[in-house]
């Protein structure tokens, strides 16, 4: 007994010394692969020695039993603190009971040496069975290796049992393996871009390398279409990850595979795995990019291996969203969910469609719409062609219109990821390069900056397709997703929100203080290259610059009117508020899968409502005064030098809302129009655009003005989406209408633009009676409404100090605005301010009214309510 204990002690010491040597060699520069091999052979020696000792005690080990290494140990990949998986394989004749003590003893000895051992005992026949519940065993068994014992028995396993098992259950094993892989990836948000990745289990981790190996093992017929370059890249990635895992094991002194921040710093400080001088330290963010590059090649290699499986063998869930009916689009087609680019028509490289930016962008549009992926050869060709695509690329409106199509596609996130991997996104938007795989450390973020951006875009698209929540889901995440989703569906320009989302963090790539400001500064150049109009680009820039405002306001008391007032002052317009609300929702969600709690969503919604209400109710009282408007006057008069006094006079008395929602250029236009009123008392400014056209009238205030404008627009079949009417101290009104062109009159026929403006002008001057214009109008066919909106008429005397606020909520029908404004005029009420908005099928019209310069009396309000309801009913018939 004494003797055996001392041998045990010696053995332990020896083994531990050996482990220290291996560690020393690794720290002196030995590769990960060499380290694994060294630990494997040390374990092999130990196990064989223990077996031989056991065999001396127990003669039953002599035949009918073999000892196998399986799993990572079977592959000879024992990381410093990995478990050692042993299989005792038994012939049918052998009784397990007779071996129990020997097996226990071997296990015990190994534990005493500090090895975490997992022992399994199986009869040969049991190895042939595959069960979905314990697929892990079969998978581990695929990496079997004989350590010692009955060689004949082992040969039966490796030459008969295993081939039979694979032959019979190949599809089940494959399905289960892919399912397990998918579940594992889902646990990590299906992305490899984590700030602190688990380098074994994350997508692009070591486990993916094994899965790729098993797929190849299971499918012997698999076409090996991997190019030498890709294979070399893959081998390098394997080598790198092995080194990192050894490094982590030694650092943590256990099987902990999380590449946390401290470990990243340590690895970077010694340039682990970086070509060149090992003593030279590198920046941790730079080192992580190297990690991500390797992880990406592993992810890609696995993806390819899965694609190479014959379709019958692919797990359905892996391809569900991609396998659609083949589509064709001229230069490329979609087959089995993959984009296949056609050859150049004449065979000459000069006509290769891969060099044509239009074709290439169309490919990404198709990907954003359908979720298809790039075929291998296509990806290769595009990657080769980047330089030529860049040279042929036309910027400006054509690029923006294609980029918009990509951004609004339901699978935009994946299309953008594919563009990013290929380098195509950086080609279009070099500003994005700075945040490529960028790790910014804070306690909350889970993903790298670029991946955070894509997750954010995924979240917004997810909202777009969220169905209306049922009663059961109230208070849940689903309810909030459905409420915010409704808000998103009503945005007039969703592409601007997506563009803003794509750019919001680009400033993080530069080490300046305020990344929001920096992102906005960087975006300015891109917006100019894309040729966005000034309204759109101002909107995008303000959103980027203020993208943290709502989150920071949420940390204050959102039930305090002062908080809401200050926040409203920053967002200024309902459109910006709506976009910022949606952005904030998605931004919180993209930080971390659990970050957006129903509690946060509810607070966000409350702040949104309170601010939206505030914006509508505060308009009348917050007017440009002689004093406080100095900055505004400065901005506008910079554009019209020498007329500072006249500009100040023009602006005085306008609601601040007017000034805040217009660019200085627009205000200059209105100012110039007001200057021309002496010659002609009706000034019109018409801006045509395919989506929303805008018409502004500047004229002295008078009765029926608003009613006649809305009537004239409706006679032309124009559907007013938003409108506002403001007046200054001198009674000059600026009424602006943004509308869609129901009959596409203006779109089809540019010569009609002039006739359109002339007829509006004639109505305004009185040359053409509005009734005559209306009698000739085309009736708009009325579609049955999807949502029925009950009309509501509300008065509020508190919102303004000198006028009564009227809010009308109604079904958005043609002629509604005219019906309302005619009723107001008929009652002798004056519109001080009008704010007209539409949300889906709901019209929300806010009017600030006075009657002979005073608020409306209760009696007048009652009469007006009845008349308005009647007018709406009449209009709806």
């Amino acid at each position, binding site marked *: 007994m004494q003797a055996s204990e001392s041998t045990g002690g010696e053995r332990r010491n020896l083994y531990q010394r050996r482990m220290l040597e291996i560690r020393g060699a690794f720290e002196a520069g030995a590769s990960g692969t060499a380290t694994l091999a060294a630990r494997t052979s040390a374990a092999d020696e130990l196990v064989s020695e223990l077996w031989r000792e056991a065999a001396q005690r127990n003669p039953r080990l002599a035949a009918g039993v073999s000892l196998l290494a399986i799993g990572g140990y079977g592959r000879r990949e024992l990381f410093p603190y990995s478990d050692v998986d042993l299989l005792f394989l038994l012939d049918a004749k052998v009784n397990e009971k007779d071996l129990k003590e020997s097996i226990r003893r071997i296990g015990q000895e190994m534990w005493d040496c500090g090895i975490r051992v997992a022992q399994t005992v199986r009869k040969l026949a049991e190895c042939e069975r595959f069960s979905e519940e314990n697929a892990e065993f079969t998978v581990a068994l695929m990496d079997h290796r004989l350590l010692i014992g009955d060689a004949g028995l082992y040969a039966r396993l490796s030459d008969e049992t295993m081939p039979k098992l694979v032959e019979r259950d190949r599809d089940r094993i494959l399905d289960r393996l892919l399912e397990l892989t998918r579940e594992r990836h889902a646990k990590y948000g299906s992305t490899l871009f984590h700030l602190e990745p688990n380098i074994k289990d994350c997508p692009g981790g070591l486990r993916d390398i094994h899965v790729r190996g098993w797929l190849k093992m299971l499918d012997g017929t698999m076409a090996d279409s991997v190019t030498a370059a890709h294979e070399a890249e893959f081998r390098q990635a394997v080598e790198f990850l092995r080194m990192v895992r050894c490094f982590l094991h030694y650092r943590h002194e256990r099987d902990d595979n999380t590449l946390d921040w401290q470990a990243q710093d340590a690895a970077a400080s010694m340039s682990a795995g970086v070509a060149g001088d090992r003593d030279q330290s590198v920046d941790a963010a730079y080192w992580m990019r190297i990690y991500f590059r390797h992880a990406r090649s592993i992810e890609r290699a696995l993806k390819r291996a899965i694609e190479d499986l014959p379709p019958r063998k692919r797990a359905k869930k892996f391809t569900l969203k991609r396998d659609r009916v083949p589509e064709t689009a001229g230069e490329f087609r979609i087959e089995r969910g993959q984009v296949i680019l056609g050859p150049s028509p004449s065979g000459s490289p000069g006509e290769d469609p891969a060099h044509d930016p239009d074709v290439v962008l169309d490919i990404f549009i198709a990907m954003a719409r359908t979720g298809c992926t790039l075929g291998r050869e296509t990806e290769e060709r595009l990657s080769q062609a980047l330089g030529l695509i860049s040279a042929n690329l036309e910027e400006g409106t054509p690029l923006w219109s294609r980029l918009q199509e990509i951004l609004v596609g339901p699978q935009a996130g994946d299309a953008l990821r594919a563009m990013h991997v290929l380098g195509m996104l950086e080609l279009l938007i070099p500003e994005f390069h700075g945040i490529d795989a960028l790790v910014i450390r804070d306690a909350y973020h889970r993903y790298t900056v670029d991946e955070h951006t894509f997750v954010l875009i995924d979240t917004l698209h997810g909202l777009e397709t969220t169905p209306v929540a049922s009663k059961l889901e109230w208070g849940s995440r689903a309810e909030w997703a459905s409420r915010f989703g409704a808000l998103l569906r009503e945005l007039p320009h969703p592409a601007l929100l997506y563009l803003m989302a794509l750019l919001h963090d680009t400033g993080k790539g530069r080490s300046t203080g305020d990344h929001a400001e920096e992102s906005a500064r960087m975006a300015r150049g891109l917006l100019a290259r894309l040729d966005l109009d000034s309204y759109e680009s101002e909107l995008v820039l303000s959103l980027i610059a203020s993208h943290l405002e709502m989150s920071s306001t949420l*940390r204050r008391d959102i039930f305090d009117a002062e908080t809401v007032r200050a926040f409203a002052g920053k967002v200024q317009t309902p459109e910006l508020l709506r976009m910022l609300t949606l952005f904030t929702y998605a931004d919180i969600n993209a930080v971390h899968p659990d970050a957006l*709690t129903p509690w946060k969503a*509810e607070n966000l*919604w409350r702040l949104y*409502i309170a601010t939206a209400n505030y914006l509508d109710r505060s308009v009348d009282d917050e007017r440009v005064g002689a004093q406080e408007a100095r900055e505004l006057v400065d901005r506008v008069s910079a554009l019209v030098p020498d007329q500072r006094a006249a500009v100040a006079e023009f602006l005085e008395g306008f609601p601040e809302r007017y000034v805040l929602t217009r660019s200085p250029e627009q205000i200059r236009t209105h100012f110039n129009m007001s200057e021309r009123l002496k010659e002609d008392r009706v000034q019109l400014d018409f801006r045509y655009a395919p989506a929303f056209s805008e018409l502004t009238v500047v004229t002295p205030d008078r009765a029926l003005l608003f009613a006649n404008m809305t009537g004239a627009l409706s006679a032309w079949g124009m559907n007013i989406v938003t409108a506002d009417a403001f007046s200054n101290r001198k009674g000059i009104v600026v009424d602006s209408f943004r509308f869609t062109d129901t009959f596409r009159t203006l779109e089809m026929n540019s010569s009609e633009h002039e006739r359109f403006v002339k007829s509006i002008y004639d109505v305004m001057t009185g040359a053409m009676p509005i009734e005559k214009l209306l009698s000739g109008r085309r009736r708009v066919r009325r579609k049955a409404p999807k949502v029925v909106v009950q009309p509501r008429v509300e008065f509020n005397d508190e919102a303004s100090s000198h006028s009564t606020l009227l809010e009308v909520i109604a079904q958005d029908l043609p002629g509604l605005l005219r019906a309302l404004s005619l009723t107001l005029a008929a009652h002798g009420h004056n519109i001080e301010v009008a704010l007209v908005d539409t949300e889906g099928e*709901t019209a*929300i019209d806010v009017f600030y009214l006075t009657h002979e310069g005073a608020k409306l009396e209760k009696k007048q309000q009652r009469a007006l309510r009845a008349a308005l309801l009647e007018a709406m009913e009449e209009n709806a018939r």
Partner: protein
Amino acid sequence: MQKIEAVIQPSKLDAVKDALVEIGVDGMTILEARGHGRQKGHTEVYRGREYSVDLLPKVKLEIVVTDEMVDRAVSAIIASARTGTIGDGKIFISKIDEAIRIRNDERGEIAL
């Protein structure tokens, strides 16, 4: 050892955290909560739809401190969370029998 549970206005969380850290309490648990006491909810009307707020958002903060720290911690919370209006929240204090650090099994005050 005693446990202090404080239900406070979410907007006061940063101030309370800072005040506690200042007196040497750096470990705390924070929960998003909803509730109401005397401060009842209200109704917001937004674009013709009514949204009632019956339960107001609150933050619940839990700390466990040594007996001699209790008074200082409570004063710090009150000083930083008070606005003097309804809805400022409440503090509850209870005895704690044992504290155990999971990592190394340390017990008692040393585990705090």
